[in-house]
């Protein structure tokens, strides 16, 4: 299976996100170093590497969960490009609940486990001012259907859900307000293989349908092959190779990428 | 006709009179005097002074008497009194290195300059009830021996054990600072709190609470691998700078317990391997509290030392500081005794309505 190569046309004339010289270290140890790339609207960027490669640090810096030591993360807001690193926290948090979304590897980190499925999906709507219970509930019901959760589970709490359902619920909760940029941290990690496949399928459908811009971090090449337009391969905090997903996976140039690809193929 | 309950005022007065009678107890037994409490229940007095944040053994003894031996109630009395006292000035920092020690032990060195002094300790007593005390027998006087401080001389320097380690760079150096510490009793607690504020909160925190937190770190909830570097008890001089005189004068002595722990530390993302410290300083002879305080202090320092937050209660600054004060805790706990019938009434109405609706829905379904 090959990744859908979307035609990069008019909508892409201005990057949605520009990352310039991003570096973060922990004392003497490098988290990630000198990372630069552009992400265009509607594009899915995969970041792959083994654990400790710096991909999670990079994602945390991009999403504003962690302050980088140096570098800029420029996001094209409605009113123009803004460096989110130097932006006031108030503004960044406002952006995090409107324009941005973050899907955690562990759904427990991204869901309110004590709140019903409907409340989880409705929270972002209410955060941006929705005040009609019936409409919030209708939207939540609709979104549960889109992530294949039966409408009669709307008042159940996530604790009562399987791992796969929890993850789908987290996705619904994040996408309900139509974010312009979605960060995903190993969204299929920790799930059974069969459940992973179904979730990937669902994600691919949503990404296409909504034209989402996504940065997805994973160690699983199958995930990026299915979802990502472009790929960055990280090792030891540095990007060792990047390019279109198919090119990188089918014709890896860097020895480390070759190793990664071959180890997957052996499975 | 219904007569609404009245007479709260008489009820309160009567309750207070009864309380006073109960406090006195059987009048055929001699009344306990404040000097007796001060002299013979000294550790209770110490605890009330420490948690009441007021060094005054006479008032603490009075509070214990008035509170019928309820120490938290006594702490409360002292605190309420303390609030009304004007603040005349701040003493110079006390120098515990010039403490006239009555007890000084180190678990990390067999012997050390200044020596180990066991002092008046429960350690190594066999916990057997001493029925001679019940028979009001006289305790034989303790053997006197030359103290660390030779008679007739002022306090001598008793160097801190951690200073020996510090000379070799084996223990983390505490940066000196001339910044006046914040005052917990004059400013609202703002979080995150710096270490001086944390130490203030711990030293007046409830002994039981601080003890349990410290114990939890030993059992693995935020383990800090602590040894008692040094525990010392004794009196130190308090000096006050008199602006008119231009120098400091000694205004008295206070008894203190100081504990410094030496904690193993294998290094972190930001710090090299070296020993680290926890610190406890408490009014009076209160060594359980001082040791507990130093363990909790050390556990709370995870951030500055670049350690991981493992989710242990003792590492959680907001949890520890917001719940350490027993006067706050006991007041809020006991306020649920107060009438809440307005709130309860509104809950009643709600429950009745919800039940009525549920029953109606059920009947409609059937």
């Amino acid at each position, binding site marked *: 299976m090959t990744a859908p190569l979307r035609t990069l046309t008019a909508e892409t004339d201005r990057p949605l996100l520009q990352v310039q010289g991003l570096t973060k270290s922990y004392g003497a140890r490098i988290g990630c170093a000198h990372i630069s790339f552009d992400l265009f609207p509607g594009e899915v960027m995969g970041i792959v590497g083994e654990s400790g490669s710096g991909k999670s640090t990079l994602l945390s810096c991009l999403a504003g969960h962690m302050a980088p030591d140096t570098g800029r993360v420029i996001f094209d807001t409605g009113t123009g490009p803004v460096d989110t690193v130097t932006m006031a926290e108030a503004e960044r948090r406002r952006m995090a609940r409107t324009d941005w979304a973050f899907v955690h590897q562990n759904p427990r980190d991204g869901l309110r486990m004590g709140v019903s499925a409907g409340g989880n999906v409705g929270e972002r709507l209410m955060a941006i001012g929705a005040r009609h219970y019936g409409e919030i509930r209708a939207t939540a019901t609709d979104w549960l259907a889109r992530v294949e959760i039966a409408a009669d589970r709307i008042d159940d709490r996530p604790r009562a859900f399987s791992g796969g359902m929890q993850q789908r619920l987290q996705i619904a909760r994040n996408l309900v307000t139509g974010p312009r940029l979605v960060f995903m941290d190993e969204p299929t990690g920790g799930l059974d293989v069969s459940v992973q496949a179904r979730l990937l399928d669902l994600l691919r459908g949503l990404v296409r349908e909504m034209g989402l811009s996504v940065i997805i971090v994973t160690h699983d090449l199958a995930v990026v092959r299915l979802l990502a337009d472009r790929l960055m391969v990280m090792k030891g905090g540095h990007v060792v190779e990047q390019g279109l997903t198919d090119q990188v996976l089918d014709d890896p140039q860097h020895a480390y990428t070759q190793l990664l690809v071959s180890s997957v193929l052996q499975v | 006709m*219904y007569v609404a309950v009245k007479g709260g005022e008489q009820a309160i007065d009567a309750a207070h009179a009864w309380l006073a009678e109960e406090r006195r107890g059987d009048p055929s037994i001699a009344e306990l005097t404040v000097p007796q409490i001060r002299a013979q229940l000294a550790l209770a007095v110490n605890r009330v002074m420490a948690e009441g944040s007021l060094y005054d053994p006479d008032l603490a003894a009075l509070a214990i008497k008035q509170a019928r031996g309820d120490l938290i109630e006594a702490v409360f009395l002292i605190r309420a009194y303390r609030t009304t006292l004007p603040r005349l000035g701040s003493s110079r920092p006390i120098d515990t290195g010039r403490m006239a020690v009555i007890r000084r032990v180190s678990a990390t060195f067999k012997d050390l300059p200044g020596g180990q002094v066991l002092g008046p300790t429960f350690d190594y007593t066999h916990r057997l009830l001493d029925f001679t005390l019940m028979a009001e027998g006289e305790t034989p006087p303790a053997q006197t021996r030359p103290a660390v401080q030779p008679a007739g001389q002022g306090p001598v320097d008793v160097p801190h054990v951690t200073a020996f380690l510090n000379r070799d760079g084996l223990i983390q150096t505490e940066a000196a600072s001339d910044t006046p510490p914040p005052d917990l009793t004059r400013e609202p607690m703002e979080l995150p709190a710096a270490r001086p504020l944390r130490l203030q909160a711990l030293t007046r925190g409830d002994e039981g609470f601080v003890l349990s937190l410290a114990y939890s770190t030993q059992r693995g909830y935020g383990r800090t691998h602590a040894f008692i570097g040094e525990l010392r008890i004794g009196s130190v001089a308090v000096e006050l700078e008199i602006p008119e005189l231009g120098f400091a004068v000694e205004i008295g002595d206070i008894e203190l317990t100081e504990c410094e722990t030496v904690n193993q530390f294998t290094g972190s993302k930001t710090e090299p391997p070296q020993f680290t410290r926890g610190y406890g300083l408490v009014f009076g002879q209160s060594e359980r509290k001082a040791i507990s305080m130093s363990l909790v202090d050390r556990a709370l320092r995870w951030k500055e030392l670049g350690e991981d937050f493992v989710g242990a209660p003792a590492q959680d600054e907001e949890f520890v500081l917001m719940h350490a004060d027993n*006067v706050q805790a006991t007041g*809020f706990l006991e*306020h649920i005794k107060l009438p809440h019938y*307005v709130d309860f009434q509104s809950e009643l109405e709600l429950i009745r309505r919800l039940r009525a609706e549920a029953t109606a829905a059920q009947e409609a379904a059937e």
Partner: protein
Amino acid sequence: MTAQDYNFAYLDEQTKRMIRRAILKGIAVPGYQVPFASREMPMPYGWGTGGVQVTAACLTPDDTLKVIDQGADDTTNAVSIRKFFQRTAGVAVTEATDQASIIQTRHRIPEAPLTEGQILVYQVPIPEPLRFLEPRETETRKMHELEEYGLMHVKLYEDIARHGTIATSYAYPVKVEGRYVMDPSPIPKFDNPKLSDSPAIQLFGAGREQRIYALPPYTQVVSLDFDDHPFVASKADHDCDLCGAGTSYLDEVITDDQGGRMFVCSDTDFCRARREAGHVGRLGTPAPSLEAAQ
């Protein structure tokens, strides 16, 4: 304890100034919780120390003080606090709402409309309306700062999803002047509408939690709700059995062990005034006038 041993209204002048500064800041930023260095008071935390400190900072020798708890002047804690100020400040006290210049209250707003120049002081146990959704003070302060109030509505949403209605009956959260979400203290939601547009100054003191907040006169206060599940101020569906009032908040009194009960005004002064004016409820008898009572 005698008045001579302590400063007027117990607290020293410096402390009172510190509290007044916090009050002024609170009035300048309605609904914002101002941290203040709460003092230990001679009554326990949780028993109205915040309210007492605010009252102490506001009192002048010319004031007339009323203290109520659960709407009543004669509940034990109200008696205790009133006595405290009689001793330490020697101010005049009253049970009549319209005679008081300062009213300290726990859990109720008087039925009689307040007027300009009056100060209503609330005792607050937990000032943070977000506390039971988010236990961390550091986080809730940030949520207020950034107006991140989505979670508050999640709570109301959950209520409706589970019970078909908003199941918060007291300490019902409000939004002040379209900015801060505020806990009105544990007053029944029946009292919420009286918070808004009141001619009186409303001050809220939380001693243990070291917070003061305020509503200046004529502040807009809106109870949180949904468009299709609007806020309803509710009370027991009865009239007062003593004075016959149909619009006042009622206490339910169990009169025997056979399920007998009656409903009476929780606001004792309101009920007394109505009975003196000749109103009689189901189980009441015409009340003697004030003069006759004396």
